[in-house]
């Protein structure tokens, strides 16, 4: 079937986008790399039948959050902050070493290790149980997790009010 091929392609695209976020000198390129990584992960959600989550990922992340990032980059200005070089005398080598060890470890565990990633796995995959349609997501969200749902609604309201309060420009600073 198609899942292994899609997984390999989208995993490579996601890693390429993630590396672009980290290494790009220009923050706009970083934002574009993030966009690529988010889209690739959204495709992996679709492969795993999380349809609604994938749609929300594209709309909220790639649509709203990335646009917000690009607006702030535009507002702050790209060249001003990035022409200076970053003073990191030894951190790069240390972090590079740690990253190499971790990636080697993960690769070895995945390829050769007899490592249980998801313990207590169900005997057989049941695609009907995790078919992420709107109805399937909404039913637990509005019954079991309704308190968390209301809390996130409150959180969003607070965040919007806080952002307005922070960004409010006073004409005469005292």
């Amino acid at each position, binding site marked *: 079937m198609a899942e292994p091929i899609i997984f390999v392609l989208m995993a490579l695209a996601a890693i390429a986008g993630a590396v672009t976020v980290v290494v790009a000198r220009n923050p706009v390129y970083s934002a574009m790399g993030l966009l690529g990584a988010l889209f690739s992960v959204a495709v992996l959600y679709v492969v795993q039948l999380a349809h609604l989550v994938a749609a929300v990922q594209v709309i909220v992340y790639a649509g709203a959050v990335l646009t917000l990032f690009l607006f702030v980059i535009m507002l702050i200005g790209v060249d001003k902050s990035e022409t200076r070089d970053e003073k990191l005398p030894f951190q790069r080598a240390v972090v590079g070493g740690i990253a190499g060890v971790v990636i080697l470890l993960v690769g070895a565990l995945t390829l050769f290790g007899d490592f249980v990633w998801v313990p207590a796995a169900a005997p057989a995959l049941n695609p009907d149980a995790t078919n992420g349609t709107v109805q399937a997501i909404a039913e637990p969200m509005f019954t079991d997790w309704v308190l968390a749902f209301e809390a996130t609604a409150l959180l969003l309201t607070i*965040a919007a009010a806080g952002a307005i309060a922070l960004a409010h420009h006073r004409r005469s600073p005292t």
Partner: protein
Amino acid sequence: MIVDAGWYMALASVLFFIGAIGLLLRRNALVMFMSIELMLNAVNLTLISAGRALNDINGQVAVFFILVVAAAEVVVGLAIIVAIFRRRATASVDELNELRG
């Protein structure tokens, strides 16, 4: 033929560590924020994969709440960055050292 959940977990851990490396290496506040988004996204991928392997829809519901919290975090964080930039005209976290003892 399906891909085992372990491969998704491995991809998610690689993405998470690339994000962590970006958070540690870059001094531009905006790029650090993008790295945090990358790490949150990697965690979301593990939740989706684990939910699928365990035949549980609640993994996807949890991803929803993480998305909402991440959106709120980005809104407030970017507002703070803009407010700092207005006052100091810099987006580098190394130059914000007023609290140094």
